[in-house]
């Protein structure tokens, strides 16, 4: 009905506006003189970047960005700003504007800006001087049948480049252990995060009661569909983490004890299953090599375990260290 050129022009126009919005949101996020404003710009930036991934045809990445960038990270940062404000006694919103105009800080800021600009220019030059290439797309497509799944991204993540994904899942775990090791000794054994509560028959609690079954099904769907279409353990795990967090934030269930053996088992289940499959594979051929005949069930098993671990790890990372009445003198108060 309309020829291709009109569509191309419209697409170019959209891309230009989107690029401007991304740059604008990013620029505002670093220049706004208000910590909370910066966080909000970051959330908005996540929405725009997800749109950019869609335009690039990378649905898997768009899903991750929508779930993490626009979703969970926002929750984490909003909580962080609020706790920062409580600890330092400022409203948090004013923390940035308190800096004097000229200081060592501003010198180092300018230096940072110059270095960043130099890196950007170098990267841009490197990108533009690349010759056109399809990358490894053809290679992945040729071997897709042997991978056990039909979504090329999942094939790469779990099968062809299993190393990377295994190490990533361990990095996530290491981040949580790092966070836990920052807890004060007195706090160990308390539940993570602030003491959550909500009016039992209020708006928040109602939302927390209605959404989870739906979110659970959607998270499972994300993981399941990942074997053939965009989706996967990371996207599904993020959705499940959000659902779990919602139930805790609505005061419907307490956060888990970090000392509980059950939660720890869930945390390491993903890397453990992945690693065991890899080690068993080492006897059958090569480390992390999945035999094509069993590849699909193995991948599904790994993805299921990874999903649980990712969901639990992300949720615990967002909850953070314990807080509340026993925390009046945080490190922020030290002179």
């Amino acid at each position, binding site marked *: 009905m309309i020829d291709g050129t009109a569509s191309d022009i419209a697409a170019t126009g959209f891309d230009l506006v989107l690029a401007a919005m991304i740059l604008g949101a990013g620029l505002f996020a670093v220049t706004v003189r208000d910590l909370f404003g910066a966080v909000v710009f970051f959330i908005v930036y996540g929405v725009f970047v997800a749109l950019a991934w869609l335009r690039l045809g990378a649905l898997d990445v768009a899903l991750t960005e929508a779930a993490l960038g626009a979703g969970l990270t926002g929750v984490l940062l909003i909580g962080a700003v609020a706790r920062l404000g409580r600890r330092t006694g400022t409203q948090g919103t004013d923390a940035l504007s308190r800096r004097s105009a000229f200081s060592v800080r501003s010198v180092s800021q300018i230096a940072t800006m110059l270095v960043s600009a130099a890196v950007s220019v170098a990267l841009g030059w490197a990108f533009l001087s690349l010759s056109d290439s399809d990358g490894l797309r053809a290679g992945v497509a040729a071997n897709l049948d042997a991978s056990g799944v039909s979504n090329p991204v999942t094939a790469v993540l779990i099968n062809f480049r299993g190393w990377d994904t295994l190490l990533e899942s361990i990095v996530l775990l290491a981040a949580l252990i790092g966070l836990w090791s920052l807890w004060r000794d007195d706090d160990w054994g308390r539940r993570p995060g602030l003491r959550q509560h909500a*009016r039992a*028959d*209020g*708006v928040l609690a*109602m939302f*927390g*009661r*209605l959404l*989870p*079954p*739906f979110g*659970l*099904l*959607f998270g*499972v*769907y994300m993981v*399941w*569909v990942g074997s053939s279409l965009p989706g996967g353990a990371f996207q599904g795990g993020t959705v499940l983490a959000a659902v779990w967090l919602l*139930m805790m934030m609505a005061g*419907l269930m307490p956060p888990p004890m970090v000392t509980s053996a059950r939660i720890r088992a869930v945390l390491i289940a993903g890397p453990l299953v992945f690693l065991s499959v890899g080690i068993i594979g080492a006897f059958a051929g090569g480390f992390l090599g999945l035999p094509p005949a069993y590849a699909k069930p193995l991948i599904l098993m790994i993805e299921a375990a990874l999903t649980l671990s990712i969901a639990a790890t992300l949720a615990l990372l967002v909850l953070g260290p314990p807080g509340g009445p026993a925390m009046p003198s945080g490190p922020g108060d030290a002179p």
Partner: protein
Amino acid sequence: MKRTVALAAIWLVFAGAGLEALVVGLIFVPIAVGLSLRLVPDGIPVRLGAVAGLLPRFIAQSVIGGIDVARRAFDPRLPIDPGWIEVPVALPDGGRVALGGELSLMPGTLAAGSVGNRLLVHVLDRKQDVAAAIRHEEERLWQTTGARRGGASTGGPPKDTEGSR
């Protein structure tokens, strides 16, 4: 087991009706139903037919709400005159929240949760007669619950008589 049907339908929308999808659904839909039963144990005593009957007016009202606010936003004179009203609502708990959400999408009103059993409503233009509309909506929500209106002033949630869904 209305919610089993609802959640199964949602799963089908997500995953389609392939064999594998049905097997996965067979495992996880019951889990979702279990979660739902844990979160809302007695079930909300709602008549689905009555809720469906509510829908056309709700959609029409929220479109009017959109038009109303759009007209005010585009009008150079910005004709608004905001204020607060408090409305005692005797609906069972979920009902008051639903009413608040509904009012927030309707012309001129925005709920801000409730204090005790009084719903706080912010009105965009005090010249609009919203009180009658609020009463009307509450009455309609009453009809969707199977609950009796007895003991309304105590605000106690009427017990579910239809059994869990």
